[in-house]
């Protein structure tokens, strides 16, 4: 099975992956422990984990024979940047509107 590379928005579009992130938001978990919460095969869980890992949402650490998953900031930063973009977009547009209206008032 080839590993898909999805962007952050595609990653969070999947309900199972969101649920995995929720579980990981409480504590780091091994892949086996995560898999116990889902009615899907262990390879299917691994695939989701790979996808989240590739998009920067989790990091994976091998301790002994177990692989531990922990939430990571990078994926979330990209989501935040999306919101920040619109924040700046509107702020600059509204400033422009203010200037246009003020210039017009002066002329009248």
């Amino acid at each position: 099975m080839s590993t898909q590379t999805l962007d952050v928005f595609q990653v969070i579009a999947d309900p199972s992956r969101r649920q995995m992130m929720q579980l990981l938001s409480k504590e780091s978990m091994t892949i086996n422990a995560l898999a116990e919460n889902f009615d899907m095969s262990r390879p299917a869980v691994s695939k989701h984990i790979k996808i989240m890992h590739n998009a920067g949402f989790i990091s994976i650490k091998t301790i002994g024979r177990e692989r531990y998953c922990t939430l990571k900031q990078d994926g979330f930063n990209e989501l935040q940047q999306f919101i920040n973009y619109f924040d700046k977009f509107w702020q600059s547009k509204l400033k422009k509107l203010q200037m246009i209206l003020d210039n017009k008032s002066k002329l009248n």
Partner: protein
Amino acid sequence: MQREIKHTFYFNQTPQQVWDYLTKPELMEQWLMPSDFKPEVGHHFRFTNPNNTFVVCEVLEVKPFTNLSYVWKNDWAVTKTPYTSNVSWTLTPVEHGTELLLVHSGFELFKNLTDHNNGWMFLCNKLGELLKAANK
């Protein structure tokens, strides 16, 4: 993490004057983008981005000089970050002018996260902890 965008701006003009700039395409174009907007509930229209892509919109609410809202969305055809959201404008007359409140909210991709037991809250709290830890 922030899930909606809010801006309050004050204008030295009346709500009627500000309203014109929110609802007349030839005036909207001067500060926002070209569009085929009409102040009619249910009207479908598009803003044209500078790169010739479109923001696809539908008018949701029109209360002259007071309230205006529309759906604001992009889809997979246009962007790798598809989303549906709402843009809402509220005009309030104040002494010597108008208070304009903009709320850009309901980003579908964030809503999906909050649908599941406020999962987003968990994630945001966790993120806060991570950031704090990183700054130590």
